């Protein structure tokens, strides 16, 4: 789909403030409501806009610990990626699963209530994952920037 400057302007305003009503968004983008609506529908139909998601603050839910686990897999097993990913999906505390090209093969973002909880998850769920060659943990100290916005 070809995007023009008006589409980009709508998306910039929309991602800056996803709580805007259709009328407020149209006004900020400098369009009539009908024109703004037509463009939003087109962007949705083309899959550019995938949807709105609620942001859950896990700290407010009592999950004070977040660990980024960097995993190198034993690639002599052809199905290593699929099998580890499938097992990681069964761990409720895993909130992100990513695969990479680089030194790291797989990354998991894992939540825990506190260090005792982390120890339990690490020993019972993480260390029991199959095909792991190397595992390295980065413990979150602080979130300095978290902004899913694209530089449109």
């Amino acid at each position, binding site marked *: 789909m070809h995007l023009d400057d008006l589409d980009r302007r709508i998306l910039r305003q929309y991602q800056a403030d996803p709580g805007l009503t259709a009328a407020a968004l149209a006004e900020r983008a400098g369009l009539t409501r009908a024109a703004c609506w037509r463009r939003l529908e087109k962007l949705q139909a083309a899959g550019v806009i*995938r949807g*709105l998601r609620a942001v859950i*603050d896990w700290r407010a839910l009592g999950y004070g610990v977040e660990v980024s686990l960097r995993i190198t897999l034993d690639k002599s097993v052809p199905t290593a990626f699929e099998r580890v990913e499938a097992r990681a999906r069964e761990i409720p505390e895993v909130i*992100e699963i990513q695969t990479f090209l680089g030194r790291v093969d797989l990354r998991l973002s894992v939540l825990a209530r506190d260090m005792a909880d982390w120890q339990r998850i690490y020993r019972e769920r993480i260390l029991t994952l199959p095909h792991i060659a190397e595992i390295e943990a*980065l413990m979150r100290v602080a979130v300095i*920037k978290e902004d899913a916005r694209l530089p449109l």
Partner: protein
Amino acid sequence: MIELDETDRAILRALARDGSLSAGALARRFGMTQPTVWRRVRRLEEAGILAGRRLDLDAAKLGFGVSVFCGIKLATRGRASLEDFERAVTAIPEVQEVHHVLGRYDYRLRIVARDLADFERVLRRRIMTLPAVGDVETNVLLSEERRPGPL
């Protein structure tokens, strides 16, 4: 911290998947009245658990074909280095996430770029020139999945 019951968790799960659901739509789904749902959502917002909405865009369709995760070790220690680094790195528009971490690296970054050539430009001109920057490791994202989490 507030106690959540099964209904609160179901509401959170539904909104994490579709944040545009109205109180009316949620009420119909869970067989409750609209004011009851509205009160629950309000309570989750006030407790800071529902922390707003995020627009989920397909980055690749918008011309951002590459995401890279960077681990950065600072070359110098001390609070001044941290503050200088953080101020400079958060100002880079291509940098979407900056986490201060403990481990092999000091910071974990998520960077978006149009393609690998564009990423190289960001890396050379913006990242390698950051104050106090030391060792930098880059891993190019191939696939990503966000999970519902412990709800």
